């Protein structure tokens, strides 16, 4: 990697200030950024680690029943601390990468990066979560804007994520054989107002809500044989567009079945 300055502030305010300098880059758990730096694909002048900010860590149940997770909370901690409150979310966190990844990677880092094959974006979108930053709150439906693209502004930090807890939910992840990211992952959550279905790994535009299936469920229809359009799906060594579209249907039905 190239040389860079390094800061490890102890508060959100200090982190925000540090990120104002030229070519500064926030560092969460580093599970994407560090390999990128090692391959010399990024050259930030300064890394601002968010790892020392206590106020950004932890899982807590709010008075309204929603679950807040600090942006700096590791996947392993979510898997442990959210299990009693939001089992599907905890299970998703416990299935990311391997133990080393789960003990370094953070929910804020994952959502800020918005990898099209990452697991967390589907949970946030599928739950209709709220992304809380140092300056505002962003609804998940507005937050995800395509591959590695989000509503975050330069230097904006995800301080926490607030999940409405559904009546029931399930995440189905079909592994890409090499990376074990989601070849396709489907997060389904049932709320009083209806069922939300969010799909990761499949689309060239990143995580998306499968609205047609949501509407079918709302009208009481079955999803048998249903799949999204193959057009716009990712095609690579591991799966064709048609395969990813097909898997989306299969995994959605399996999630619904697991919830039932």
């Amino acid at each position, binding site marked *: 990697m190239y040389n860079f300055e390094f800061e490890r502030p102890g508060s959100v305010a200090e982190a925000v200030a540090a990120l104002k300098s030229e070519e500064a880059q926030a560092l969460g758990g580093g599970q994407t950024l560090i390999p990128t730096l090692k*391959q*010399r694909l990024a050259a930030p002048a300064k890394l601002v680690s968010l790892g020392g900010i206590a106020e950004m860590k932890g899982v807590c149940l709010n008075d309204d029943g929603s679950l807040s997770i600090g942006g700096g909370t590791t996947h392993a901690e979510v898997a442990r601390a959210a299990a009693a409150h939001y089992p599907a979310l905890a299970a998703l966190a416990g299935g990311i990468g391997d133990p080393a990844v789960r003990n370094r990677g953070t929910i804020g880092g994952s959502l800020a990066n918005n990898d099209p094959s990452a697991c967390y974006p589907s949970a946030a979108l599928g739950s209709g979560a709220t992304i809380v930053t140092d300056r505002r709150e962003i609804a998940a439906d507005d937050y995800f804007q395509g591959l590695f693209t989000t509503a975050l502004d330069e230097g904006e930090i995800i301080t926490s994520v607030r999940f409405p807890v559904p009546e029931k939910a399930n995440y189905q992840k*079909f592994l890409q*054989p*090499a*990376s074990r990211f989601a*070849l396709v992952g489907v997060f389904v959550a049932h709320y009083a107002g209806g069922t939300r279905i969010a799909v990761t790994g499949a689309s060239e535009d990143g995580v998306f809500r499968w609205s047609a299936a949501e509407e079918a469920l709302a009208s009481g229809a079955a999803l048998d044989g249903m799949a999204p359009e193959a057009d716009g799906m990712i095609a*690579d*060594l*591991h*799966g*064709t567009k*048609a*395969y990813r579209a*097909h*898997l989306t249907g*299969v995994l959605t039905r399996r999630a619904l079945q697991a919830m039932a």
Partner: protein
Amino acid sequence: MPKDSGIGASSKRREDVRFLTGAGNYTDDINIHGQAYVHFLRSDVAHGRIVSLDTSAAAAMPGVVRIFTGADFEGVGGLPCGWQVTDRHGQPMAEPGHPVLAQGKVRHVGDPIAAVVAESPEQARDAAEAIEAEIEELPAVIDMKAALAEGAAKVHDDLPSNLCYDWGFVEENKGAVDAAFAEAAHVTTLELVNNRLVANPMEPRVAIGDYARATGESTLYTTSQNPHVIRLLMGAFVLGIPEHKLRVVAPDVGGGFGSKIFHYAEEAFCTFAAKALARPVKWTSSRSEAFMSDAHGRDHVSKIELALDADNNFTALRTETYANMGAYLSTFAPSVPTWLHGTLMAGNYKTPLIYVNVKAVFTNTVPVDAYRGAGRPEATYQLERVIDKAARELGVDPIALRRQNFVTEFPYQTPVAVVYDTGDYNATMDKLEEIADIAGFAARRAESEARGKLRGLGVNCYIEACGIAPSNLVGQLGARAGLYDAATVRVNATGSISVMVGAHSHGQGHETAFPQVVAEMLGIDESMIEIVHGDSSKIPFGMGTYGSRSLAVCGSAMVRATEKIINKAKKIAAHLMEASEADIELKDGQFSVAGTDKSVAWGDVTLAAYVPHNYPLEDIEPGLEETAFYDPSNFTYPAGAYACEVEVDPETGKVTVERFSAADDFGNIVNPMIVSGQVHGGLGQGIGQALLENCAYDPETGQLLSASYMDYAMPRADDVPFYAVDHSCATPCTHNPLGVKGCGEAGAIGSPPSVVNAVIDALQSGGKAVTHIDMPMSPSRVWSAMQG
């Protein structure tokens, strides 16, 4: 009761203590005072002409010692090829030059263009980025058949085409084979791809060159399976260093699987640069570099046809294979699709007529060479897939069809040159049916189907030629080296023993298994014996480890040297006990005089050899050290039968291996636990090839698509089942003193066809008319095949 020491004991691997506790001494652990570091600037295009190369800015960067380009190597030899294949028309193969650093053109992504030597690895890399290389991109030659088409771009401008050779075997049989096909009652045809693989040893390659001005001696520390071969190739053909001024050391090596047999540009560079700069030069490959610079494996595209008579007897076999050589000829590349492949096309069957055609092709890809099994997996895969397809077409049991056509009498002269010495293919098939519980398959299938899964059973046999090899034979076939091996047994004064061997251990467990043999012969404790390997200045001129040859060839040399030790020790013992040499017996480390109670211990004799106060100096020399070279009279022929059971998820196409059983005949066995471990590892690699691993290039640009573990799927522990392995069916090899056959490659050779056969069986049981799926059978490929 199992033995607890000597031949046949499952002695625990003594080397594992240091490997598992981080105390190993790998090449990267070696740091020499004053060493500089090299970073290679590698081509990021598949094919291009170097228009200009400006290193001036880079040379001025901090810490840069010197930058080398192809121009610095103009008076130096290229990397040699160790095997010359003669084509169907009696002409030698096309053999292009292989410069250490690119000269004029780059020919694959990863081809080294320049080398920056600097005070630190980071400075070397920084400066490499500052080199201004103008490269005019040329059309990339990737697909083999397109490469041979009229008007295709040429990888090597000085060759007539991209064809390396067009090989026919046995050419004289071609007419008879064609005639047999014309008369056949049934012909089964199959076209298939043997997917390109990356070896991926856990330890990436490393090289350190060192030059001693005082003595004029060069030393290369390198991650090699065969230090003497590297010394010979690099000294004689590349750098012109005589053997006595060149030492090659391969210390602990973390896996090779063939990819560390070959002589690589980085080794020659570090040795060359160390002398030019008069300071040590070190290179450590990154994993990314390994993907684009370690020789790849397999990559054959084949058509195979099997002719049968009305009684389902195999009457003829005909194959046509396109074998990818990559951009240059790696050290043993030409031999893999020919002599290590065509000679095995008979398999375990008495097919009387066989013709194999192989077209080796240059492409703008990383060179392809031997990878665990080397040619034999490609032969086995074609043969065992086409037999399975024939059985399905004919509606006969695939096991019965195989049994009907087994070779049953030995020695057996195949129609493809080799002679099988021993074997009992029905015995291994019987054993397989038992350990795989083939009788219980129907119940297991019903249970899977009740859960909505398809279950399939696939079986295959394999045979391989190991213990490579008889020098006079391989010489006739084009090898430019002998393939004997050597061992020196040095008995020390107090009776401990150092055995210096030409074989190299990089995971095989030689340090444990070899002493078991010597301990058995002398009747002393294994712990008194140590194996020394990997340093050309310490070991006799042996040819290293590959082709499952270590115990069969080098172990045989060790036996011969130990026999010489015993003969001399008996002379000494006879003198000490004032008895006749003919009456001396050696048992449990004691020399005794037959029919008396007189005896002397092993240690008394060894001490006498080195403190010869009371010693027959007029008859024998002092000391107790013997060397033997061993050149086998034939290959060895391990064989076996494998069975795989898979479940296929019909909704997703996901294949899971539920059971895998292997019944092998390895002849005699020195350490059953190590043999089981070798089979387990090989099966993992074979299942990896069948289901996961795929080295893919973009067909247009020649970019490596699977260039990291994000896209190259290695098998993990949960991708493989618990294995049932058995090696109790032993027909000892008849032409080496240990009766051993070799076990290192069997698992990788024998497993892919049964996995594919099992998936096809599963899909057909679900009513799908699928007859073939190319490896790796990823969920997407299986699902696509099921869509028809």
